[in-house]
């Protein structure tokens, strides 16, 4: 090693510092500024509703069956027209995802026959206790925009008889 080498290395380091002062910043000032995620980002799940507010989830547990880390727990109950949560006969009376177990693979989304469970763009999940990591149905269900969309609803008889809607092949 010659004597000039350390000097050159020092100069290179200083140059790196100097030049980066003029580069565009990549750091986000989180949480004031939040990064927008990519279209196919898989973040915290949302349980979707139809336009009329009825829940898409029919409590079939297929997401739980598909989940490779056994993070989802579903319990179903029966709808009536007086007390309707979703179209058809069955709805999820309990729906829980343990976010500490979830690996955000999106298999639940694939398995869902009604496109009810969707991995959203929220990545802000932190907990003080393990119990807090279990997201219940109240936390997962999509918020409603008007009061008459809340579930359960009173619905006319013989209208919402189908659990599984006809769907097109997914494009995206």
């Amino acid at each position: 090693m010659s004597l000039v080498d350390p000097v050159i290395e020092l100069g290179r380091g200083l140059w790196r510092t100097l030049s980066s002062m003029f580069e565009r910043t990549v750091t986000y000032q989180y949480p004031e500024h939040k990064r927008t995620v990519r279209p196919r980002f898989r973040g915290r799940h949302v349980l979707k509703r139809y336009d009329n507010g009825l829940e898409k989830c029919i409590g079939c547990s297929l997401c739980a069956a598909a989940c490779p880390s056994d993070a989802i727990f579903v319990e179903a109950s029966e709808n009536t027209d007086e007390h309707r949560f979703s179209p058809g006969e069955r709805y999820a009376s309990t729906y829980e995802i343990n976010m500490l177990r979830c690996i955000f693979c999106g298999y639940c989304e694939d398995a869902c026959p009604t496109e009810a469970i969707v991995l959203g763009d929220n990545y802000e999940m932190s907990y003080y206790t393990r119990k807090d990591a279990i997201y219940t149905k109240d936390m997962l269900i999509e918020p409603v925009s008007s009061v008459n969309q809340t579930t359960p609803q009173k619905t006319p008889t013989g209208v919402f008889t189908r659990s599984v809607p006809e769907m097109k092949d997914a494009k995206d």
Partner: protein
Amino acid sequence: MDKQVTLTIDGKLISVPEGTFVADAARMADIDIPVFCHHPKLEPVGMCRMCLVEIGRPIRDRATGQFVLENGQPKIQFLPKLETACTNRVEDGMVVHTQSESAKAGQKSTIEFLLTSHPLDCPVCDKGGECPLQNLTMAHGAGKSRFLYDEKLHLEKRKPLGELIYLDQERCIQCGRCVRFQDEIAGDPVIGFDERGRSMQIMTSSEPGFDSVFSGNTTDICPVGALTTADFRFGARPWELEEFPSICSQCPVGCNITINTRREAAADGSMVIKRIMPRQNETVNEIWICDKGRFAYHYTESKGRLTRPAIRKDGKLSRASWDSAIKLAAENFAEAGKNFVVLASGRLANEDLFNLKSLADHLKGDAVLYSEIGGGELTSAIGISPDTNLGEVGPGTTLVVIASDLYQEAPIWYLRLKQAVRRGATLIVANPRQTRLDDHASYVIRYAYGDEVKTVHSLDKKNKIGEAFTRSENVIIFYGSEGLGVEGSAALASACAKLLNEYGFAGKPNNGLVGVWQRANDQGAWEMGYRVEADLPRFLRGKVVYLVGVDPAGDDPRLAKALENAKFLAVQDILESATSELADVILPAQAHTEREGTFTSGERRVQRYYPALPVLGETRPDFAITAQIARQAGFIQEGTSVSAAFDILSETIPSYAELSYSKLAEVQPQWPVVGRGDLYYGGTTYENKHGLGAHLTTTASRGENVHILRVHRESAPRPQENELLAVPVTRLYDRGTTVLPAKVLKNRIGKATISMHPDIAERLNVKNGGLVKISFDGHSGEALVQIDKTIPAGVVTVPRSMGLAIHEPVPAKVK
């Protein structure tokens, strides 16, 4: 052995018994022919056309009857069309193609056609995951339908057939299995087909709807999710359920069951029972269970469970440690000497009863079985012997049922006896009133209440019935407690036993005496030498009583009084009760769903059950609690390993000799094959992988001397002028602590209903369904009246365990 027939299926040469259907023959050779409507337990109908195959038969020369040969081989002739494998019986030389182009096309089209009107329900369907239609569609379906989705029929999706069973009309594929089960097997033809063609639907014709105690079985054999039970509907997906083998604890039949459990949020994430399913045991319950066994399991999860020991201090029960509770009990028991009484119920395991009995013996006390039927020691002497199988008896066997309504008391025995008659057995039913079994009986004997023994004595008279009895190769007598108390039933048992012994119908398979007990393991108690007590109230007064699994105070105010006057009460049970309120010490026990053990069925088959749920609170198994008490009293019993406790039992009690837990867990191949992953015959009965149990020997079968005491009995009480004779009868759905917590059965349990002859009703001026007050023995209560013209005049039948404390025939006043 039956004659064997040899045929070729898909090039495989196989031999099966004559008379087998092609579909079953294929199953025996591990070849899959898809079926929906066919079930080996039911008569074939060929309704669904799923099993289409090509069948070729060898041509015979008309003159000689020999096969016509072609190139040295028999010439085979195929019909131009496909045939159903489920309706054609095998023939020698038959050639079947299940995989040919045309057979496959036929099967594929049938699936496509069935699906033209089948809803897209699999995600919400209770059968999804164990559904033959799903499986066969995956295996044989086209993958795409040429029919229009919009043209599917839309029908009612939630049609109650009764309050227990719901029909989804869209899912039904009209295979008729449910209807055929009710007609052929249950003998309750209460559902049927309405309309025809595409509008054909299942409907019920009874009031209340689907009025059969076997209704739940239709949901098992339905090959689709058309029939669901009110109890389980949407309860879980099948693949989420865990399965635990067990034995039904509701009656002496001892049906093999599978308990399905799952975690539930409502139970704070702990395991709960979701459903009870039949488990195959062709020698006990085949693949069926009754609705009581299926639905009345909620008691083990009831809020009233005792979970920790308690001791009475200053007149109040307060929490205590196990050590102090056991110590207190042991001290009192040891002091009592002759005044110590174990009052145990047939709900306990054999190991429990054994430890309790030896504790009583050691302390020189008494071990009493809480039951209203006497004479059980005779079943241990000349009860039915090893190798008996009610599922196989036929011509040459006479079955006698006396003083018992099996449909109500032991439903699966009713079903098995009925099937035995179909196979050619002779059935004699003797009962003072009409029972459901009468319809299937070869001879019906009507006697007056009180004449039971006389009736037995006339069974070998020189008449048709007597001939059927005496000329028979085998005779089994089922005796019960209809209209009888402890003494009456003991006299009946002894009369039956004497007769059986006299004619040699004892000590060999398919012969002997069977008691139709009130609880699952009464037989076990008899084998271990328990006795029953006719006058319990008097007997218990001033005693130190160890009550295990019983609630006398809840059953009868007179018993409550007697217990209040007892010296010391230790109550060991699973549920809070009127008796536990009176206790000096409470010892909380584990329910049979939470522990291991064995029951001895009324047919004297010992069967193992396994834990299905985690242990609740501080509860302990009964045999362990007793062993701890014994240890305190200075006497060593097995209290940790239940199988070791059973080993000691089998060394001590002769009829259990050489049995062990591993012997009881042995299985053999059973036909039909059910409950495997392949779902060949569909149906959600579970396969038996955990043991068929084993039969006990009898004194007679061991070749020892049988001694039968003649029991003298005072004649039935005579009612006075304005009184009626009230006689106890047993109902399936009663208000017992193990039944009542099942909310789905609420309507079936109903109110206490007494039955009487129309003339008496007229005299009393009451109508059918009217409310009356009935009083007997210083006890009175309200009841509804049912008018039944088969009830003898002067008699009123009073149901047991329905709030009216009746134990034996008594004169009663009805207003």
